[in-house]
């Protein structure tokens, strides 16, 4: 039968004997600790720990004994152990050798100082990231130029693979979002235009806003969400598993194998996606125009030909490769920032998507202002 763990102190002629009995395992340690706490230690006395009654033990139980033995010793008591079985003796010695004498805790932070330290670190980090980003884009430009001068070095297969992954596979979701956006613009416009009886202007409204701004922007945002994150995570995990280093050591440039195929893939596929997005969002507008405003499909298309200038389509399509370039650059750049920890994969993937979407919108705004000022 298992004996309940217990602890008694008896006085003998040359000091005290602490009798330990029963199972000294981790489940019992909490109550034993409370019993130990009630013991008052007489300074400079002789304490003998009688371990013969211990039937079962583990490192936690032994640690508890050691902890109080050290506490007693601090009060100049003399401690000795008797009656330990062979295996207990053995484990006891190991535990004693490895007992953490003094805790080497790192110094506690003072709030204000640690806050200032964090601000400083973040500022420095931001500066470093910026300069690393400039170095990255610089090197990227150089590699793009050299590979365009020697087109045979472009990894065609990898590029096609990424066109499929980031372009073709994004088509369904982009068609759906563009269609819905076409419906949204037309619907909101329809209620306003109906008041003026200016139903036919729905054509200009839908077509220009969709092809010039909304289709390219939405396509870029969807692609940023899908591909910037994918690129960051792919490259980051390759870095963690040393694949990138393996490549470099074999003389395969990570630029040619990893970055350029992704960059070219997005530069090529985004205009194509935008083109499909244009068609579908106009179609969405046409559906609403014919149901709500009695503007038939034929009328709608005739009106596009008459009043909507080609430049709007072209501006939308020209913006697309710029967005693609931004998304791919940010996705790859953040991927190379990932270091050995698994946590940083999540961190940089998030940053990568947020950055990519932000810069797509910011660049779109810049282009919009610039072109309007130029009178286009």
């Amino acid at each position, binding site marked *: 039968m298992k004996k309940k763990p217990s602890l008694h102190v008896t006085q003998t002629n040359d000091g005290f004997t602490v009798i330990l009995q029963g199972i000294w395992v981790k489940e019992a340690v909490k109550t034993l600790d409370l019993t130990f706490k009630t013991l008052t230690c007489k300074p400079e006395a002789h304490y003998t720990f009688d371990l013969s009654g211990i039937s079962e033990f583990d*490192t936690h139980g032994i*640690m508890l004994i050691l902890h109080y033995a050290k506490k007693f010793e601090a009060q100049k008591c003399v401690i000795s152990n008797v009656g330990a079985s062979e295996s207990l003796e053995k484990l006891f010695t190991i535990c004693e050798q490895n007992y953490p004498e003094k805790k*080497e805790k790192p110094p506690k932070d003072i709030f204000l100082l640690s806050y200032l330290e964090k601000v400083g670190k973040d500022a420095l980090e931001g500066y470093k990231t910026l300069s690393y980003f400039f170095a990255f884009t610089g090197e990227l430009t150089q590699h793009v130029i050299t590979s365009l001068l020697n087109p045979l070095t472009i990894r065609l297969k990898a590029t096609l693979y990424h066109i499929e992954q980031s372009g073709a596979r994004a088509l369904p979701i982009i068609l759906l979002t563009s269609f819905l956006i076409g419906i949204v613009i037309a619907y909101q416009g329809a209620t306003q235009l109906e008041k003026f009886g200016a139903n036919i202007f729905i054509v200009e409204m839908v077509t220009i806003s969709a092809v010039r701004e909304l289709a390219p922007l939405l396509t870029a945002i969807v692609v940023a969400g899908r591909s910037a994150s994918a690129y960051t995570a792919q490259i980051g995990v390759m870095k963690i598993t040393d694949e990138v280093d393996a490549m470099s050591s074999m003389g395969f440039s990570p630029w040619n194998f990893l970055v350029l195929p992704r960059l070219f893939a997005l530069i090529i596929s985004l205009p194509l996606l935008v083109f499909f997005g244009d068609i579908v969002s106009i179609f969405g507008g046409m559906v609403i125009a014919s149901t709500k405003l009695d503007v038939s499909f034929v009328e709608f298309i005739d009106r596009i030909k008459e009043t909507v200038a080609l430049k709007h389509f072209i501006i939308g399509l020209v913006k697309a490769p710029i967005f693609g370039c931004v998304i791919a650059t940010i996705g790859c750049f953040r991927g190379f920032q990932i270091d050995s*920890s698994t*946590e940083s994969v999540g961190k940089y993937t998030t940053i990568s998507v947020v950055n990519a979407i932000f810069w797509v919108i910011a660049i779109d705004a810049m282009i919009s202002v610039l072109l309007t000022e130029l009178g286009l």
Partner: protein
Amino acid sequence: MKNYVAIEAKNIVTRFGQSVIHDDVNFKIQKGEIFGLLGGSGSGKTTLLREMIMLQKTSGGQMLVLGTDVMKISSKMAQKLRQKWGVLFQFGALFTSLTILENVMIAMREYTNLPNWIIEESALMKLSMVGLPPKVAYMYPSELSGGMKKRAGLARALALDPKLLFLDEPTSGLDPYSARAFDDLILTLRDTLGITVVMVTHDKDTMTNVLDRFIILGNKKVMFEGDMTLLKQTTNDELKKFLS
């Protein structure tokens, strides 16, 4: 009657799609034994280990760990069983978001009612037992070398004083001196705490000095079961490779 068998594998079959890894594998591991799983690459040693700790399912047969069939276990029982073993993965598998000390403490925090100072002290003691200096305790896994991660992983596996210890290539990647120290540590733990140790290993010295018994997997079956003295008498050429 006391049961002296810690783990028993009965007619284990493992298939990944078309390829068969184990076909009718049988062995018994006694309590208090240090047992080795050996075999060439791709012979399914690590798979077998993963099947014991319920990370992978067998395609057939029975795997009895501490008397319970891990294939037919309720999730509550499984959770209980998991607290009775410690696992050291090949590369340590420390949680990167926690410090080394927190890595060792986490199981004690979750599964015991011990006061915080006891948890902390015993975690520090475990770290020292596996040969790590105290300053490592407050560092993060990414700041440690491969060998140190492995030691920290062992400290984490030992945190709850397990009855069963599973080690996946514990000495690979360690320098010879540390590897022998690791072996000694495992021997002492077995002698004092009566732990049963199951390890996948390639290390010749570990085979001779530490393992009580081992099996060699090959051709989807157990090719050999026994100890070093028995292996030395073999005439089989396949088995002789493991001696050189």
